């Protein structure tokens, strides 16, 4: 016969389990709180005008954040066009060719870049681009791209390293040159995971405010070209939220809701992709 577990052990067990559970609950509470709060405050501001019109002055009725939504989309697109290929190229190099000291140093530099505060990235782009060419969507996109590159690079590298060596050898053994093995076999084999990495990088920069303040500045209207100051959701939210006018604050909540929804949707799509079996 086995001895019964002592009462004390059972109590300690229960207590510890309870503490861990409480920790998990507490960790998730801010999420539910934020979602509920943003939803409650922001839902009222959403209307057709919100998505189709530019902002109006304080005290006036109507108006929307269409320019900010368009501006954000443009800058996220620019950042993706620059940051995704660049980051993936870096990741591919580090994973497939990166042996030795140089690669080690590069890897370390990329890691450090990941942890550079985004406001510093903003100042950097301000210094090298904005000073010469003025505030623009280009500058904003560049700042977001600089934040995306190391994230995409590292996730690409980690994902490619998951492809076992014997799969690469199968390709090499068939007489495929190394670059074709990477392009035709390694990358397609991990496309779901790669896409996930890219989406998460996009979600991460979608809400960035600080780097856009110094680069795209903001705009009360639609921009006529990419080389003009450009509005973005985070900056617009920031400006409206601190304006002191209740109408504008309400708009800011609407913007916050749209932003949160956007990021949620990216995460959900990503999860769906991860769950999907491509292999």
């Amino acid at each position, binding site marked *: 016969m086995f001895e019964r577990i002592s009462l004390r052990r059972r109590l300690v067990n229960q207590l510890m389990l309870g503490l861990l559970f409480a920790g998990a609950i507490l960790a998730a509470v801010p999420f539910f709180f934020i979602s509920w709060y943003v939803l409650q405050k922001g839902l009222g501001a959403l209307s057709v005008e919100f998505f189709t019109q530019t902002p109006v002055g304080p005290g006036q009725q109507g108006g929307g954040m269409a320019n900010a939504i368009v501006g954000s989309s443009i800058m996220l697109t620019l950042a993706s066009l620059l940051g995704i290929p660049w980051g993936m190229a870096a990741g591919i190099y580090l994973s497939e060719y990166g042996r030795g000291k140089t690669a080690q140093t590069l890897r370390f530099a990329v890691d450090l870049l990941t942890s550079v505060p985004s406001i510093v990235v903003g100042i950097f782009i301000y210094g090298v681009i904005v000073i010469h060419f003025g505030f623009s969507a280009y500058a904003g996109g560049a700042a977001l791209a600089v934040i995306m590159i190391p994230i995409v690079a590292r996730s690409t590298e980690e994902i490619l390293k998951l492809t076992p060596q014997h799969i*690469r050898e199968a390709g*090499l*053994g*068939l*007489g495929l040159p190394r670059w074709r093995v990477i392009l035709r*076999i390694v990358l397609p084999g991990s496309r779901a995971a790669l896409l996930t990495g890219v989406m998460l990088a996009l979600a991460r920069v979608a809400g960035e405010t600080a780097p856009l303040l110094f680069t795209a500045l903001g705009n009360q209207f639609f921009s006529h070209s990419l080389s003009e100051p450009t509005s973005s959701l985070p900056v617009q939210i920031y400006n409206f939220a601190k304006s002191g006018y209740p109408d504008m604050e309400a708009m800011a909540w609407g913007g916050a809701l749209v932003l949160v929804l956007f990021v949620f949707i990216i995460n959900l799509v990503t999860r769906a992709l991860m769950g999907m079996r491509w*292999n």
Partner: protein
Amino acid sequence: MELIAVKNLSAWFGEFQALKNISLVAERHEVVALIGPSGCGKSTFVRCLNRLHEEVPGGHLQGEVWLDGQNIYAPGVDPVNVRRGVGMVFQKPNPFPGMSIFENVSVGLRLAGISKRAVLAEKVEQALRQAVLWDEVKDVLKRPGTSLSGGQQQRLCIARALAVEPPVILMDEPTSALDPISTAKIEELIQELKERVTVVIVTHNMQQAARISDRTAFFLLGELVEYGKTDQVFTQPQDERTERYITGRFG
């Protein structure tokens, strides 16, 4: 002239020497069986015949390997070209992830410049039939190659290597994961292939080596202990260690 001539081949993994001064020749249309205890260097040896050994971190070698009159380790030789002429079936099945059964077999053909759908379909079918897999997969060619069972994956890899019809085929324990019927069919296939190609096959199965090969090489601890006509190696081995191994009295 011999199709394969290995001269004083030594291979290392970093400091560890896995092959010690191996020399052997094989004629066209021969099947060469490599036997020997686990870890003796059989896989390493076949991987030197298509320049895959150098892809392992720390892998390097010395010596010469002549294929069809050309030293594949001569300076300036592109390993990619060498590998196109040498098919390989690996010890572990390694179908390409994210590719369908059809694509797995056709990828080498596409690489060789064949793009006509009908030609591809025909060659894929032929290769899959040769590898005794066709009947099992003919209705599910679009399914991922990785969704097959281990033995089916191994046959898929055999088909992949056969599809491009290379003049030399290296097979590293191709039947170790197969049932007796598939094994028998693969052995039959190797006999047929002999008409056109030279096959180097690693096997732990003595009967298989005796059945299908013309020459047998016995490896031990990185050395080539004995190499000769298969009947001779199995009936009158020159080396006592060979005799002990093939009669199962090794240890």
